[in-house]
């Protein structure tokens, strides 16, 4: 049997991350949950995920730094999807400059996210 794909999710809204975890695990992915950027970086270094989902605005290490760390320090091409809020257009631009793969603007539809993840992981 093929091993399920690993996704690191960095999101400080506990209930949103729980919902996404349920939905994505139902789709057959393995979820690793971080509540801030630092935990995310640790999880990424320890688990070599197939995909990273990260909120831009997070305590201590921002989503931008997570991207920067993955692309520049770890030199990995793992797809990264960032979650942004309205008004953070500039940050989204920065995220793409740093090497983000895609972004979802909050509020977003969980089902749409799943579709995008599936496409990126094909």
């Amino acid at each position, binding site marked *: 049997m093929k091993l399920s794909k690993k996704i690191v999710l960095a999101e400080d809204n506990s209930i949103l991350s729980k919902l996404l975890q349920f939905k994505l695990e139902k789709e057959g992915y393995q979820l690793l949950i971080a509540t801030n950027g*630092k935990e995310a970086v640790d999880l990424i270094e320890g688990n070599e995920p197939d995909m990273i989902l990260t909120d831009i605005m997070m*305590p201590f290490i*921002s989503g931008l730094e997570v991207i*920067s760390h993955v692309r520049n320090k770890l030199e990995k091409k793992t797809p990264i999807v960032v979650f942004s*809020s*309205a*008004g953070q*257009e500039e940050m989204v631009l920065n995220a793409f400059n740093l090497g983000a793969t895609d972004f979802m603007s909050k509020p977003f539809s969980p089902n749409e996210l799943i579709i995008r993840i599936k496409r990126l992981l094909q």
Partner: protein
Amino acid sequence: MMLNLPEQLINFFDYIFFGFAIAAISSYIILAIISAFETVNYMKKNSFVNYTEILSSSISPSISIIAPAYNESLNIVENVRSLLSNHYVNYDVIIINDGSKDDTLEKLIEAYDLVKVDYLINNQVATKPLRKGVFKSTNPAFEKLIVVDKENGGKADALNLGLNISTNKYVACIDVDCLLLEDSLQKMIKPFLEATDHKVIAAGGVIRIANSCIIKDGKLLDINFPKNSIVRGQILEYLRAFLLGRMAWSKLNGLLVISGAFGLFDKKIALEVGGYDTKTVGEDMEIIVRMRRYMEEKKAKYKVAYIPDPLCWTEAPDNYKIFISQRNRWTRGTIETLKKHKKIGFNPKYNSLGILSYPYWFLFERLAPIIEVLGLFYFLLLIVTNNVVWDYAVLFLIVAYLFTVLFSIITIIAEELTYHQYTKRGMGKQLIKTAFTEPILNHPFILYAAIKGNFDYYFNKSIKWGEMTRKGMSSN
């Protein structure tokens, strides 16, 4: 032996000291009552505000955090990281390295991939020249950061350079070792944006004491009550000043001080009055008085706002030597500011600033320690001349002590009803214990420092700054 002091003289002094005590006590009670009403009002107004709506908005006004750093090598990287993680969108962080003799700048360059850039500076206020120049990060994740290296000129001078450097509408002047909570900027900017029929020129925040608290990764994780009695006393003192004092003054629109550790200013007005005064050790108080004076003279409707939420945490002195030198400096700052602006005192042209704030500050901040010490000398004189009526004297002390304790306990209750930061079991007991011990353990040193400040101001002009040695904020 009983010397006969003239009875009239004794009566005269009795009346002065007794009158002063009554005036002080009544002013405390009045301020506390105003505070109570204002706090309830504030809590109601802000109970349903959603700050996330404004923080994420790119049309929200721009703010610069200006933080002077002098020999901060130990914690600078962590401190800057904490400042960069604020949840406001439209802001930048300007670190002014004020001629540090250690490797503060080098640490920043390494941690944040800084490179030197050509930067437009509008020299609106004169400052000491740049040393190595202006630095920015090559990493887009740190694009909010500007580091400026200049020659040493003191805190006020460094802040002035920050005012010149900033391109934003508002500036938050802070101590670099302060821990700002993530929503601090949007809470502080609110009064500026809400005002419609007046102008808000500055807003002051609350300073909370971070000693013994656990801070990790630039976040306040756990609030503890320190063991050290000097720090404990200061916690109570700060609570009293912020919860019961400043809240009332903001209602009366009579705030004279915004703590230098965290204040937000309308940059245009701060520059119009000429920035910070580099000749005083009380630059944080002085600029507010000057800005207010400027607005009064322009006959403009204005306000100095105050945000009671615990947004800024900083370390307080934990030994008597540093504590005394800090208070000594505050005393000299107060004297200098009041002297420089004596024109507004008791001057009805300056409205409540002239007839309420200034006199209050003069009487109960500037003169109080002097009157207290004179009272002690008078008491000694009475003892020596055997003129003491002991039952009066003892009872008078007991009443004063009990009132202080009572006032502190009311403060603790106010804290519990509003922000309730000291949640752990046993902290209530420790707070109450501190209310009883503080007048004995802390007050004499505050009094001593104030007198020494007066002495230094008049007879010892060479002393300028008190050292504040830093202990690691990030270590637990």
